[in-house]
Structure formats: structure tokens, C-alpha cells
């Protein structure tokens, strides 16, 4: 099979990339080319009741990593560098694995259109990392409390035994409880990283494709939930600052920690239309019990394809049953072998 390669960007696209990334970033790429002629000013559309209109199908599928690579020393790639990075990453996604290896035990993403390069993905973000603060593009160090929590969680996992010992030991994504894309923060999920935003009076709804989670965000200045009411995706309240939707989320239940976070984490998301095909999405993580300072990342979204088919994860999640059945069979075989050895 021929490997898929990305279409090269045309001159207009390159100009658009430069403009969009500069707008999103609030700063110019370090190796920016001379500015293209100013395009006609784009005006954000409004809903019938006057809100900035964020509605539609969007994806945050991207090749930009959360943290900057150790071998990367700048905040932005040039367009040429960026195109090369994407081309190489897409080729890696489609490259061959060795038969008979663990990596080979999987269906082929490429055959099912699941490689990132086979669908819409963000092409106008030249960042070398999503993290923009700290400026080094890395998450800040853990506090002593954060380090202790990480150690405690690792010890608890060891105490509980193997993931195949009990369904409760399996990752929550495997059990179809919640997945990475749901957020907050909303992060690309590897595949099916799509969102459907719908606005009504006093609400913004975000349907997350993986795994059909729904965020309902009141924007009517109602009071937040009491501190003791904890939820998987927290309690979100939104308000408008100009054309930007600002969402503040607290009251997480701690069962879906983000990169080692505590249930006291506060996430502030900022979403705005940059142009007809781009949403700026920026989030700040404030969790003094985990990190030595708040940190901020930016992961823009681009137009995607709708409608979103319901990702009813429990419907076909035979994997849990198959995995546990396989493990129990291996247990029985081991016990029989041990008994036979004893009887001999």
C-alpha cells in the first residue's frame, strides 16, 4: 500500500497559516516570513440572540505534542519544518510493524481511516508544543504533595494487582467510563477527536465524540455547585469576555485525574472564533497541590465533518470480557500445570 502523504500547502495556505498562528499565539513565529498582505478583516458571526457563534463540528486532532521535545529549542516551526514534521509523523503512523511482536497485535488504523492524516486535523498551528506557559513548553515541576500523590497512586495500582485481575483494575477508558478527549481540558484523543458545539440561550453544549460525553455549560451567571458536589467532568460555568467564551471548571471528583492532578484542580478554558474554519482553544491549569505554578496550553480546533455518529462505547466493548476470560483461562492452565507437577 502506498503511504499517504499530505498535500503540500499552496502559497495562499502558507499565508493563511502565518496569519492564523500569529493571531492564535498573540506573537509572531520566531522565523516568520515577511507578512502577507492583510486579508479582509474577518467578523465573528453571531447567534440570533447575539452571542458569538462557536457552533459547528470541530476537531482538535493534531500532531503538536503537549510538551516540547527535548531536541527542540524554539516555540514555532517554519512552514517548511512543520510540513516535514507532519509528513514524517504521518508516515510513522502508517509504517509497518514486525509480525509476531506485541506492537503487531492490533487492527490496522490505516485500513479504518483512523490515522490522524486521513481525517481533518489542525494544519495552521506551527507551535512546537501546546504548552505556552511556562515558556519552555514543559509542564512545571510537581510539588512535594503532587509527587507523594503520584507515588501513592502507583502503590495503590501495585496493591490492586494486574489489570487483568479484576475489571476494577482496568483503565477507566477501557471500561468506557470516560476518555481523554472529554476533558476538561479537551485534548485530542488519538482518533475521533471531534466536538459538536451547540448554543442556546444561557447554555453552551459541547458533545464530545469520544465517548459520547456531553458538557452542558451554563452561561447565565448561576451559582456554582456546592463544594461537596463532585462530578467526573467537574462543574463548569461559562461567561463571555468579548467574543471569547471563558469556562471555569471546579468540583472534579478526582477519578479522572489529568496528568496527575488533584480534585482541587481548576481549569479555565478560553474559546473564540479566529476565522471561519478555526477556533482558538486555550486552557490554564491551576492546581497548587500538584504543580509549582499554573500552566497554560493552546490547542486550536479546525472544522470537522458532521454529524457525529454516537460512540456508544459500552455497546460493543467485548474487549473487557475477552481479556478477563483469557486471563482466567491462563490462570486455570497454570493451576493445572502446578497440580500436575505436584502429583508427579
Amino acid at each position, binding site marked *: 500500500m502506498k503511504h499517504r502523504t499530505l498535500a503540500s500547502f499552496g502559497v495562499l495556505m502558507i499565508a493563511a497559516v502565518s496569519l492564523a498562528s500569529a493571531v492564535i499565539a498573540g506573537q509572531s513565529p520566531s522565523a516568520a516570513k515577511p507578512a502577507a498582505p492583510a486579508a479582509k478583516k474577518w467578523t465573528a458571526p453571531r447567534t440570533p440572540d447575539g452571542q458569538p457563534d462557536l457552533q459547528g463540528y470541530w476537531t482538535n486532532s493534531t500532531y503538536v505534542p503537549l510538551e516540547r521535545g527535548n531536541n527542540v529549542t524554539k516555540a514555532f516551526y517554519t512552514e517548511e519544518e512543520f510540513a516535514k514534521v507532519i509528513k514524517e509523523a504521518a508516515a510513522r503512523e502508517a509504517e509497518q510493524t514486525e509480525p509476531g511482536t506485541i506492537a503487531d497485535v*492490533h487492527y490496522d488504523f490505516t485500513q479504518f*481511516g483512523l490515522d490522524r492524516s486521513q481525517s*481533518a486535523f489542525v494544519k495552521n498551528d506551527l507551535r512546537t508544543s501546546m504548552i505556552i506557559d511556562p515558556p519552555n513548553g514543559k509542564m512545571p515541576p510537581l510539588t512535594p504533595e503532587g509527587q507523594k500523590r503520584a507515588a501513592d497512586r502507583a502503590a495503590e495500582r501495585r496493591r490492586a494487582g494486574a489489570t487483568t485481575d479484576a475489571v476494577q483494575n482496568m483503565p477507566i477508558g477501557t471500561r468506557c467510563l470516560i476518555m481523554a478527549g472529554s476533558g476538561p481540558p479537551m485534548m485530542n484523543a488519538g482518533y475521533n477527536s471531534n466536538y459538536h458545539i451547540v448554543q442556546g440561550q444561557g447554555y453552551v453544549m459541547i458533545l464530545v465524540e469520544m465517548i459520547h460525553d456531553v458538557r452542558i455549560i451554563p452561561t447565565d451567571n448561576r451559582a456554582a455547585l456546592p463544594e461537596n458536589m463532585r462530578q467526573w467532568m467537574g462543574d463548569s460555568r461559562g461567561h463571555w469576555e468579548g467574543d471569547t467564551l471563558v469556562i471555569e471548571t471546579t468540583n472534579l471528583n478526582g477519578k479522572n485525574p489529568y496528568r496527575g492532578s488533584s480534585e482541587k484542580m481548576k481549569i479555565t478554558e478560553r474559546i473564540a472564533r479566529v476565522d471561519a474554519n478555526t477556533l482558538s482553544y486555550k486552557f490554564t491549569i491551576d492546581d497548587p497541590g500538584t504543580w509549582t505554578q499554573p500552566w497554560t496550553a493552546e490547542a486550536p480546533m479546525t472544522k470537522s465533518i458532521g454529524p457525529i455518529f454516537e*460512540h456508544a462505547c459500552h455497546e460493543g466493548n467485548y474487549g473487557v470480557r475477552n481479556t478477563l476470560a483469557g486471563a482466567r483461562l491462563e490462570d486455570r492452565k497454570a493451576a493445572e500445570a502446578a497440580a500436575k507437577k505436584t502429583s508427579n
Partner: protein
Amino acid sequence: MRTKLIIAAVGVGLVMTAVAAQAHHAFSSEFDVKKPLVLKGTLVKWEMINPHSWFHIEVKNPNGEVVEWMVEGGSPNSLIRVGVTKYTLQIGMELTIEAYQAKDASNTAVGRNFVLPNGKRLFVGSAGGPDAPPATPDTVK
């Protein structure tokens, strides 16, 4: 239609492609790397369900017995986005599936490669075939 089951080590020459993206679960816990299979049979059902689709194929054993295998494939969501439906694959079509059997020793497997009778790999991600350009919002209405 002539069908047969071949249980063999996966050898040199098979086209294998990588999986680099995130997986929903640890496939090596569910399927046995030491049990590679090549299943040749006819499609009797395709479950377009999440988190993974399932191909049901009837395979004739060397002794003539016909058995049904259930083979795991990818999430249908991306396929539906580019216009693939449950009718895109014809019931009765012949498939050769390079696979790994489930650790529970049932007739369950994960499909590493789905190959058509003409030797080409099944590529359900694009109606235009393996050389078609990737779907984008501009190309899919």
C-alpha cells in the same frame, strides 16, 4: 465458495502496517501474540459498533466443518464520516484476514490485515480506494 482455515505462523511477505495511535485498550492482553492466524472465509455480518467494529466470517475447517469467527476491526465513526455504511461491505464477500486469536481460545481474533480476493488490502476508510485523497471537510459533504 471455497473457504479454508489456515493456522500458520505469520511469515515474511505479509503486508503489515503500524499502529502508532492511541488504543482504547491493551490488545496484547486480549489477543495472543503467539497465536497468529490466517482466516479465509465469507463475511456473514459486520457489526459497525463502538469502541471497535466486528467482522463475522464463516470459515471452513480442513475437515469440512464450517465455523464462525468474530474478528475485531476499527471504530466505525471515522468510516461513517466519509460515507461508509453497513451496506458498503457486501455480505458473502470473501476475505482473508491475518489475525491473532483471543487468549480465551474462542473463535475470536483481532484482524491485523483484511485482504480482498484480488490481493489488495481492504480499505474501508475511503470509497475511492487506497490512493484516494484523505477526507476533509472540503471533500465530504
